[in-house]
C-alpha cells in the first residue's frame, strides 16, 4: 500500500452539453501523499476543481477510480460502477474538509452556528458542539467574533470561518479550491500561512488548487500541473519551478526561471554569446563564485541577469552570465561551478 491518502486512477470527467461533450478531466492518474501540502496548478478551466471534487464525490467521475484513505470511493470498470454508500459517503465527507473561493458560509447564521453546522452528526452534545466551535474559531484567530454574521466580516475573516468549519470534524484532508483567489495579497498570505501551520501542527494533508503561483511557492511541497484536463507534470517545487522542461509547466509557472525568455525580452541573441545560466540554492553558496572564476581560471563573468526567489523554505538564485576567457578555462570553470552545487545550463537556442 502506498503512502498516498488520495489516489486517482485513470479518472475522467466529461460533461454533456446538448451536442458538445466537454472533457473536463481526462485520464488522470495521480497520488497525493499523506501529510503534505500538495498543489494543483493550472489556468482556469484546466479541470483542477473538477478533479478534486471527485475526491468527496461532489462530482462523480465518468470513468476511473478514486481511492481515499485506502478505500475505494468510486470505481468504474467497463459498465460496472461500484460506489461507496450514501451514508458512508456522508461520514467520509466529514473527514475531508473543503474551502472555496467564495467562502460559501451560511449568510443567515452567525459565525459560531456556521461552524456548528458541520458538527450536527458528530455525536457531540449541544454544549460540546458549542465548545468545539469556539475552539476552532480560536485556532483561526476569530474567537472574538462568535456572534458576528458573515456579511459583517472581511473576506479574509470569512475564509477563516470557512476553515474553522471545514476542520471542525478533525478531518485528515483539507481541499482548498481557489480559497485565496478572492482575497487581497495580505489576506492571501495570512490564510496560506494558517494552512501551513495547520499542516505542520496537525499533520493535515492539504490539497491546494490555485492558479496563483505565489501561493504554490509559498507553502506547497509538491505540485501537479494541469492543462486541458490532463496532469502534464508532477514534482516537488524545485523540479517544477526550476528544472522542468515541460513547455506547459514553463508557461504556467512563469518565466522567472526561464533564461531564454528573459534574454529574449532583453533583445539578446543567445547564439552569438557564451551564455550560461547558474541556478543554485542560496544556502549552498559559501564561496564568492564570480571572484573565484577570475582568480582560479582567469574567466571574467559579466552578469546579464540575476534573480532570487523563495520556493517554500528554500531560496533559489538564478544568474545568467557571459563567460569571457579561454575555451579550456571555461570548461574547467563549469566543472568548478558544478562542484559547488550549482546547476549550470548552457544557453543556446535551437535553430
Amino acid at each position, binding site marked *: 500500500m502506498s503512502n498516498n491518502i488520495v489516489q486517482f486512477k485513470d479518472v475522467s470527467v466529461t460533461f454533456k452539453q446538448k451536442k458538445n461533450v466537454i472533457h473536463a478531466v481526462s485520464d488522470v492518474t495521480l497520488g497525493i501523499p499523506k501529510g503534505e501540502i500538495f498543489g494543483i496548478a493550472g489556468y482556469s478551466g484546466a479541470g483542477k476543481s473538477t478533479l478534486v471534487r471527485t475526491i468527496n464525490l461532489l462530482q462523480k467521475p465518468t470513468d476511473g477510480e478514486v481511492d481515499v484513505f485506502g478505500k475505494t470511493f468510486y470505481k468504474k470498470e467497463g459498465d460496472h460502477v461500484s460506489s461507496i454508500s450514501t451514508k458512508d459517503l456522508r461520514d467520509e*465527507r466529514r473527514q475531508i474538509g*473543503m474551502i472555496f473561493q467564495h467562502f*460559501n458560509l451560511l*449568510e443567515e447564521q452567525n459565525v459560531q452556528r456556521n461552524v456548528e453546522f*458541520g458538527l450536527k452528526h458528530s455525536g457531540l452534545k449541544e454544549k460540546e458542539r458549542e465548545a468545539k466551535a469556539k475552539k476552532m474559531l480560536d485556532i483561526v484567530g476569530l474567537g472574538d467574533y462568535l456572534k458576528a*454574521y458573515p*456579511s459583517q466580516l472581511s473576506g479574509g475573516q470569512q475564509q477563516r470561518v470557512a476553515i474553522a468549519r471545514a476542520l471542525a470534524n478533525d478531518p485528515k484532508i483539507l481541499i482548498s479550491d481557489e480559497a485565496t483567489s478572492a482575497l487581497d495579497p495580505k489576506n492571501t498570505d495570512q490564510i496560506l500561512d494558517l494552512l501551513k501551520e495547520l499542516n505542520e501542527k496537525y499533520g493535515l494533508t492539504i490539497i491546494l488548487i490555485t492558479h496563483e503561483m505565489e501561493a504554490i511557492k509559498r507553502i506547497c511541497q509538491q505540485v501537479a500541473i494541469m492543462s486541458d484536463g490532463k496532469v502534464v507534470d508532477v514534482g516537488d517545487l524545485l523540479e517544477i519551478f526550476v528544472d522542468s522542461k515541460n513547455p506547459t509547466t514553463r508557461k504556467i509557472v512563469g518565466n522567472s526561471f526561464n533564461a531564454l525568455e528573459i534574454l529574449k525580452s532583453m533583445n539578446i541573441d543567445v547564439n552569438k554569446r557564451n551564455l550560461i545560466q547558474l541556478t543554485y540554492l542560496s544556502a549552498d553558496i559559501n564561496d564568492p563564485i564570480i571572484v573565484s572564476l577570475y582568480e582560479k581560471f582567469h574567466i571574467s563573468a559579466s552578469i546579464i541577469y540575476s534573480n532570487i526567489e523563495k520556493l517554500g523554505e528554500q531560496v533559489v538564485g538564478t544568474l545568467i552570465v557571459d563567460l569571457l576567457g579561454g575555451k579550456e578555462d571555461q570548461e574547467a570553470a563549469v566543472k568548478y561551478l558544478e562542484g559547488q552545487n550549482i546547476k549550470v545550463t548552457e544557453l543556446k537556442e535551437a535553430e
Partner: protein
Amino acid sequence: MGAWFATHFPNVVSQGLNGEEGWITAVNQTIYMTFWSAIFGGIAGIIFGVCLVIFADNGIMPCHPLFWIIDKVVSLFRAVPFIILLAFIAPVTQKIVGTQIGTTAALVPLSVGVFPFYARQVQVALESVDHGIIESAESLGATNWDLIFGVYLSEARSELIRVSTVTLISLVGLTAMAGAIGAGGLGNMAISYGYNRFANDTTLVATILVVIMVLIIQVVGDVWAKFANHADQG
C-alpha cells in the same frame, strides 16, 4: 362625529356591527378565510416549492418524473381562474367539509387556489440560494434533511417572508371572490350589500378596510423580512 357619520354613511351604519351582516362579522370572516387558507395553502405550497427545487435536474435529489408531475400539477392549478375554481371544486369541497357553501367551505378552493401560486414563489425564493453554499454544506456531510431545513429554508428565509407577504395579499384578494359561494367577508360586503344595493358608502368602507388589512400585512412583512435578513448587513 357619530351624527355626521350616520348622515353621510347611512347604509354603513344600518349594516350593524355584530349581526349576520355586520361589519365585525365580515372582518372576522375575511381574517378567518385568509388565516386558514394561508396555513393549508402555505404548507402545501412550501412542500410543492421545495419538491420543485430538490427534484430538479440540478437539485439535491434529481428525479425527473417527480419534478415533471409536480411542475405540471402546479401549472395546471395556476391556469384555472379562481372564480371558476370555486365552482369547479365544489364536489371536492362537499366531500371534505360536508357542504359547498359558507365560510369554511371557501377554505378548500382558497387553499387550492393559493398553493400553486405560493409554490412557484417558494421555488424562486429557494433557487436564489447560492449553489456554492449547498455544495459546501454537502462537503460537510450534510444530509438531504439538513440541506432542506438547515440551508435552503433557512438561507432563503428573508426571501420566503417576502413572497409569503405577496401571497398573503393576493389571498386577501381571493377571499373577496369567495362571497360568490356565500362565504361572507369584506368582499361580499362590498359587492352584495354595497354595489348590488347601490350603497356606495358601504362599498367604500369595505374597500378601505381591505386596503388597511393589506397595508398591515405589507408593513409587517417588510419589517420582518428586513429583520430576518443578515446577508446584506454592512
